[in-house]
């Protein structure tokens, strides 16, 4: 990832809000893993149970989370960046819609639908181009994946 720090700008004097958030994120992941690993028998070091590794890794992750958090609190660092919810929503949405429609209706619906939803993520989308492209690309994928590669992906599957 290109480093988000712009030397000399705002970031220098502030606390590392990015690290603070990053540390909290790790703590949350670790806590949820610990919670779910609690039900697993730990065993002993000599005869490890299923829970031994997940639990120790989760605890280690939590410790690292605290470390990152402390660094963020004590040292100046990068500020927390704004999230782009538009991109997040439509890109992930298009993937989810693809997943939900491909077996139900087939690629012929899932393909263009997911590309159109994906297109909404970008304010610069030229709808005419995207629509034409969605149709062409779906046809191309059918030829490529179904006809040429013979992958068992549903093509037309609706009433």
């Amino acid at each position, binding site marked *: 990832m290109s480093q988000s720090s712009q030397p000399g700008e705002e970031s220098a004097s502030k606390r590392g809000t990015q690290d603070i958030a990053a540390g909290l994120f790790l703590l949350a992941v670790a806590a949820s893993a610990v919670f779910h690993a609690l039900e697993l028998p730990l065993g002993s070091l000599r005869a490890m149970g299923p829970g031994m590794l997940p639990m120790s890794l989760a605890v280690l992750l939590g410790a690292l989370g605290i470390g990152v958090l402390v660094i963020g609190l004590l040292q100046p660092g990068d500020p927390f960046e704004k999230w782009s919810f538009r991109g997040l929503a439509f890109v992930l949405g298009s993937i989810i819609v693809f997943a939900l429609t491909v*077996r*139900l209706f087939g690629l012929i619906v899932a393909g263009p639908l997911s590309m159109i939803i994906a297109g909404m993520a970008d304010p610069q989308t030229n709808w005419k181009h995207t629509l034409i492209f969605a149709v062409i690309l779906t046809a191309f994928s059918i030829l490529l994946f179904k006809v040429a590669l*013979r992958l*068992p992906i549903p093509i037309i*599957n*609706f*009433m």
Partner: protein
Amino acid sequence: MRTILTALSVAAAFAAGPAMAQAYPNKPITMIVPFAAGGPTDVIARIAADNMSKTLGQQIVIENVAGAGGTTGSTRTAQSVPDGYTIMMGHMGTHGAAPALYPNLKYDPTKDFEPIGMVAGTPILIVAKKTFPAKDLKEFLAKAKADGDKINEAHAGIGSVSHTTCLLLNAQAGLKPTQVPYKGTGPALNDLVSGQVDFMCDQIVNLVEQIKGGNIKAYAIATPERSPALPDVPTTKEAGLPEYQVSAWNAMFAPKGTPKDITAKLNDALQKALADENTRKRLLELGAVLPDKAGQTQDALGTFVGQEVARWTPVIKASGAVGQ
């Protein structure tokens, strides 16, 4: 979600009703293989499907849906539309051992499927590392029994053929080895060849070349007759453990409710495949044992599945093994 999808696809099937009136099959048939491509079940499925496609005049497309010891693919088959266009290659694990191994199993092998027919069994062998100090099965069993948990048994993961068939061996012969789990037959076999572990049980097709090459030694084959692929390996009956009779069988199933004439047509195509010289030859080369005429019927498979479930349940329950 699943149920909605199933409901919708059932609706779709009814809507497509008129199309179904045409002679079956009028479009490609999907055969779900609940294991990864390239394994013994997959290979057998592809060989059989190849010939059946010719008889049926429609392609049988193999769809590998691996996961959770084959139960993911079996669940999907059980829940799919019973129109004859989704069938599966079931197996000793998915339709014999699974009910005992998986307490939350979403299907019942005896109730949720229509049997199509037995395809092939692959015999199980008892093999050991080449330096194991026993010259035949009797010596092996005596030594393994005396050594108790000092001896190491490799298996390809909880619920795998090598795991369950060795559980049966251990129960019948009174062995209590330390079990070393691997992820798949490859790594387990690798460590058996290099002598890290002492013995394992597995399907003949995985072992035959290693035995012929002298990398491991075979003590017995768990079938009534010797295998033409390994004529020097005695049967368990000859070697002194006659009750150990087990093979990793593969059989075709359709979801419950598939019309009788369709399953009959599929059974007919399967029987033709098993009579075809080239198909027979290819299956036999794998070391597979093919069912006789009586064993190829749908009823024979239905009865057999019931017997297998009844046989594996106590063995697995007693061992305390849980798959999931």
